[in-house]
C-alpha cells in the first residue's frame, strides 16, 4: 500500500516538476520577447533608415535581429536587398514600361562607343538620381564588357544583356533588381549596342535630353535619344584632304539630324528618293536639319564625308517584333 502511495507521489511530483519547468521556459521566452521590443532604439532606427534608405519595416526587422547593432543590421539589410529586389522584380515584371533613359559612353580615345537603353514605368523615376546612377553604372559595365571583345559591332537584346557580369561579380540583372527593390517600379535594361572604328573611320555621338539637364558624371551621357555615327573621310579631288581640318562641327550636326529626323538607313546613290520629302527614311536624301534647302548628301559631299553606319536609340520607342 505504502509503495503505491510513494509511486503515485513521485509521479505527481514528476508531472509537477515538468509543469514547473515548462512554465519557467515560457516566462523566460516572454520576458526575452518583451526585452526585444523595448530594445528597438528609435534613434537607431531613424539613423539606419537615413543611412541606407531601406524601408522602415526592413530596418526595424534588422535591428530586432541584431539587437541594435547598426553595423550588422546594415550588412544584413544589404544582403536582403538583393533577394528582395529579385522578388519585387519578378512581381512587377509584367507592368508596361514606357519611360526611361538612354546611356552613352565613349572610350577616351574615341575609337568605340556603347549605347544602352534602360526602361522604367514613370518619368518621375527616370529623373531620379538613383535611376540616373544605375544607368551610368550599367553603361560603364556594358562598355567595359564589350570593349574586351574587340568586335566591330555588337548588339544585344534583353536576355543576353542581363547576363553580363560587372566588376564586383554581380550580373546586370542583379544590379537592376537591386534598384527595383529600392525604387519600387518595374525596370529593365532593354538593349545595348557597341560600335568600334576601323582604321580609316571615326565615330561621333550625340545624346538629346528632353526637359531638364541630367547630372552627367565621368564621360557618360544620359538622355532620351542617343546616336552613334561612323564616318569615313573621302579623299577630295585635289588630294588636299590632309590640309582640311576635321569637320567636327558638321559631324555633330549630322548626329543631331539623325536624332531629329529619324532615318532608318543610310541609303546609297543607287536608291531612289521618296517623292514626299517628309516621309524620306534614307539619310542621304533627307533635307538637312539646319538647312532644309539642301540634302544630307550634299552636306556630306561638301565636307568629304561618308556615313558608313549609324545607330539611333529613342527611349521607349516601339521596336519591330515587340508587343506593346
Amino acid at each position: 500500500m505504502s509503495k503505491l502511495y510513494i509511486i503515485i507521489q513521485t509521479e505527481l511530483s514528476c508531472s509537477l516538476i515538468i509543469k514547473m519547468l515548462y512554465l519557467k521556459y515560457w516566462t523566460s521566452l516572454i520576458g526575452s520577447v518583451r526585452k526585444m521590443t523595448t530594445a528597438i532604439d528609435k534613434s537607431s532606427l531613424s539613423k539606419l533608415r537615413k543611412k541606407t534608405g531601406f524601408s522602415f519595416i526592413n530596418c526595424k526587422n534588422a535591428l530586432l535581429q541584431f539587437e541594435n547593432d547598426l553595423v550588422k543590421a546594415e550588412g544584413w539589410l544589404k544582403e536582403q536587398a538583393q533577394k528582395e529586389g529579385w522578388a519585387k522584380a519578378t512581381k512587377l515584371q509584367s507592368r508596361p514600361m514606357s519611360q526611361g533613359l538612354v546611356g552613352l559612353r565613349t572610350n577616351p580615345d574615341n575609337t568605340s562607343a556603347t549605347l544602352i537603353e534602360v526602361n522604367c514605368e514613370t518619368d518621375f523615376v527616370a529623373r531620379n538620381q538613383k535611376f540616373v546612377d544605375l544607368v551610368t553604372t550599367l553603361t560603364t559595365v556594358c562598355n567595359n564588357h564589350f570593349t574586351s571583345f574587340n568586335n566591330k559591332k555588337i548588339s544585344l537584346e534583353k536576355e543576353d544583356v542581363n547576363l553580363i557580369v560587372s566588376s564586383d561579380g554581380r550580373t546586370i540583372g542583379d544590379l537592376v533588381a537591386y534598384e527595383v527593390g529600392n525604387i519600387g517600379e518595374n525596370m529593365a535594361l532593354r538593349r545595348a549596342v557597341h560600335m568600334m572604328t576601323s582604321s580609316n573611320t571615326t565615330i561621333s555621338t550625340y545624346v538629346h535630353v528632353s526637359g531638364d539637364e541630367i547630372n552627367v558624371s565621368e564621360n557618360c551621357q544620359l538622355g532620351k535619344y542617343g546616336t552613334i555615327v561612323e564616318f569615313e573621310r573621302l579623299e577630295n579631288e585635289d588630294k588636299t584632304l590632309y590640309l582640311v581640318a576635321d569637320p567636327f562641327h558638321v559631324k555633330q550636326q549630322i548626329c543631331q539630324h539623325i536624332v531629329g529626323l529619324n532615318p532608318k538607313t543610310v541609303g546609297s546613290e543607287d536608291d531612289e528618293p521618296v517623292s514626299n520629302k517628309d516621309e524620306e527614311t534614307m539619310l542621304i536624301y533627307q533635307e538637312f536639319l539646319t538647312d532644309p534647302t539642301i540634302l544630307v548628301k550634299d552636306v556630306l559631299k561638301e565636307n568629304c564625308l561618308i556615313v558608313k553606319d549609324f545607330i539611333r536609340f529613342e527611349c521607349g520607342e516601339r521596336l519591330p517584333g515587340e508587343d506593346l
Partner: protein
Amino acid sequence: MAASMPHSMFVRGLVCVISRTADVLPRLNFSNKIILSRHSLGLFSSSVVKEEIDKKPHCNVGTIGHVDHGKTTLTAAITKVLSEKGLTNFVNYDQIDKAPEEKRRGITINAAHVQYESRLRHYAHTDCPGHIDFVKNMITGTSQMDGAILVVAATDGCMPQTREHLLLARQIGIKRVVVFVNKADIVDDELVELVELEVRDLLTEYGFDGNETPIISGSALEALNGSHDKYGSKSIMKLIETIDDYIPTPTRDITAPFLMPIEGSVNITGRGSVCIGTLLQGTINKGQEAMIMGFGTEIKTVVSDMQIFKKSVPQCFAGDHLGALCRGIKSDFIERGMFLCQTESFKQWDTFEAHIYVLTKAEGGRIKPLLHKYIQQMFNKTWNISCCVLLPEDKPMIMPGDTATVTILLRKPMILVEGQRFTVRENDITALTGVITKTLPSLDLKLKGFNMEIQKTYRIESNARLVLNKRARNKK
C-alpha cells in the same frame, strides 16, 4: 474639362467671360467659364451677382506620389466619403485608374479628372501618371493647380522618387502641399511618426514649409471599403477639412491697377471710341485717366463713360465685361490686342520667358525638331503677332514631345500677363503651346526679316521740268 470650370453661366442671355489667364485659340470664344470666388462676388455692380452668391468657391488640387502608395485609392475614397454626405458622386477605383488619354486642344494628356464638393468648396481633382502629363496640364489648362496632396505609404516611407514629386509641385507653381500617410492601419504609431518626420524634412528641403504642412494619416483602402473608424472615413474627412483650411482659394484682385484687354472697338463720331473687353484686374471709375497700350505704342486718354449690358455705370470691377468710351481716340487706332490700363502702372515688353510644350506629329504638330531662332506667329486669346523662339544655350534643338523653358522675342512690345497661355502656329499646324512665366529686359537682338528695320532713304525731287514731264505722261 473638370480642371477648368464645370458650370456654364448663362445670365440674361449673355455669357460672362472671366479669365484670370488668357485662353489660347482665338476661334474659341466664351468658352472660359470660371466660378467666381466669394470675395469678388459681393462687389459686382450687375445683378448677375446675387444669383451666384450661393455658389461655393472653386479650387484645383491634384495627387502626387508613388504608383503603389495608393493615390488612386485615396481619390476614390474621397469621392466615396463625400458621396455619403450627399455632395458628390462616387467615382470608383477602376474609372480613375484608367487615366484616359484626353485631347485638349489636340494635345494628348493622360489624366484622371474627378470632381467633389466639401462643405466649403468645390474641387476639381487631377491625377496624372507622369511628370510630363502634369506639365502639359499646366501649360494647356485654363488655371493653375492651387494645391497638391502628397500620398506616402507608411509601410515604405518616402521613396527616392518622392523628391521628384516635390520638384514637380515646385515647377508647376504649387505653394502648398497636404500630406496623407496611407496604410497607417497596418503599421504601429511610432513608425507613422517617423515617416512624418521624414516627410517634413523632405518638404523643407524642397522649399515647402515642413513645419506647418499638415500631415494626416489613415487608410484609403479602409475608407473605400466602408469602414468608419479612425483609419477609415474619419481620416478622409479630416483630410478634406485640412484641404479646405490649408489650401487657399485664388481670389480676383480688385486693388491692382486696372487692366483690360481690348477685344474690339466702335467709333462714336465727336466723342471718341468705345473699347470692349473684360476687366482682368482692378477697378475703373468714370472720368479716370487711362492708357491704351500695345504693339509698342501708347496713348493717353480719359474714360468718360462705361456701359455694362447697355447700361451706364459709374464703376467697374474685375470680371466685368464692359464697353469703355475713350475720349478723343479714333477707332482706327485701336487694334485687337491692345490693352486699356491704368496710367503709369504697366510697361510693354518684347522679351519673355516661357514654359513650352512642342506638339508631336500625332497631336497635329511638327515632324521636325525646333531649332534656334524659330520665327512664326504667336497666338493669344486677344492678340497675335510674329515671334522668335530662342532656345537655351545648352539645347541645340527641341524634339516634338519635349517641354522646355525658352526665351521668346516679339516683333513689337506688348503688355504681357504672367500665366498667360499661348500657341505658336505655323501655317495650319500648331507647333507649340506655352505659358508665359516672366518678362525679361529687352535683348536688343535684331533679326533680318523679323524686327530689323532697314533705313530707307527717299529722294524727293521736284522742279518745273519734272512736273511738266509727269503731266505729259499722264495725258498720254
